[in-house]
């Protein structure tokens, strides 16, 4: 994918996340987010530091422009960027790094892609839910919130994959 198109989609998805955060408040147990999928889809050529800085800026933009807690999305998203290379290496192997290629559902398979997303989302939601609860919510509430948000966000993230990690053969 051309790099300028990727970043255009990326900015549009940030706006989409802002709309989700501000207008789609269904339940206190549900937190819909596409940010971890977006960070996971950043090209591996960007590098770890670059991905962390982009994740930080993305999280902070959402924090500032939505009604949430300032710094919370950034705090939860930077670990996803830090462990992103590890997740990709763990799930897809070293070949992607050797060939400097990005992953896609068509080339690497739906299962592996979902596993990578699951790990990235789990990391994000663990930090997010834990910090957001600030020790005042019971463990059961946090566990339900984590599980519901993980399931729903994984489904929504499939839409972002079509934009940020399309089939390279097309």
């Amino acid at each position, binding site marked *: 994918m051309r790099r300028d198109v990727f970043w255009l989609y990326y900015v549009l998805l940030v706006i989409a996340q802002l709309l989700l955060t501000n207008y789609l408040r269904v339940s206190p147990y549900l937190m819909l987010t596409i940010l971890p999928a977006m960070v996971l889809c950043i090209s591996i050529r960007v590098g*770890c*530091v670059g991905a*962390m*800085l982009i994740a*930080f800026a993305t*999280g*902070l933009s959402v*924090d500032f422009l939505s009604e949430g*807690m*300032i*710094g*919370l999305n*950034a*705090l939860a998203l*930077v*670990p996803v960027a*830090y462990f992103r290379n590890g997740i990709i290496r763990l799930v897809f192997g070293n070949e992607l790094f050797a060939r400097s290629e990005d992953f896609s559902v068509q080339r690497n398979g739906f299962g592996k892609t979902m596993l990578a997303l699951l790990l990235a989302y789990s990391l994000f939601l663990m930090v997010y839910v834990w*910090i957001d609860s*600030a*020790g*005042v919510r019971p463990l059961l509430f946090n566990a339900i919130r984590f599980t519901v948000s993980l399931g729903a966000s994984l489904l929504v993230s499939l839409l972002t994959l079509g934009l940020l990690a399309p089939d390279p053969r097309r």
Partner: protein
Amino acid sequence: MQKRTSWISKLANLVIFVLLEMTAFQMVYSNAPLQRSWAAHSAHVFMDKVWGGSNYIGYYFQLRGVNEQLAQENFALTEELFQAREQLRKAHVDTMALDNRPGFSTLAAEVVKMSHNGQHNYLILNKGYEDGVQEKSGVVTHNGVVGIVDAVSAHHAFAFSFQNNDISISARLGLEGGSGLLVWDGVSSGKAVLKEIPLQYKYQPGDTVFTSGHSLLFPPDIPLGIAGGSRVINGSTNEIEVKLFQDFGSIRYVTVVHNNSFDEIEQFVQ
């Protein structure tokens, strides 16, 4: 070279990761009161666990000083107790229109040496005649009788331990029961035998044994131990087992008691 560059790169990634996380956390901390309070509480818990542990080590090394302070407090309380008992006794004696006795003087001391394993055990105290210790004084704690001072030097006193075959003290069963002689059983560190209790004095196992006050060495009503089983000797007296309150293995601070009328009474007896 490539390996070193890889390590430096990983370290740089980690440093930037930590910096970004700290920045984000600082933002959360300064903008959300609930999270601020939670973070402060978590920090306090952490500090309590970490620095609290180091304090315990400090406390351990301060134990000697604390023990000495407690011993001083214990001595002050014992002294007050003796004075209160003496006032009670005087009040009782006054009603019987008898003459008052001067009572007992007390002095705090520390055991510097003590033997446990012989049949003639002894202890050495860190106070001598320059501190006010006199021969023929009793050595007690709040748990009972420890021994009798036999000799004093300028700064030390030698006392026979109660765990000594030659020592017997006058003791009484309960506050109003029969009196007899309490002697060490010669075997165990925590047991003694109360001898020569006339058969007409009834008692129950579990009754407390006190100093009788008939001895010139010890004030009355110091609890000594608990009565146990008994046997009849020669058909005329009871011999009762007594479980002592005093743990002779852990004695460190004691009170030396001296009967101020001791010399006068001794001369009178002679």
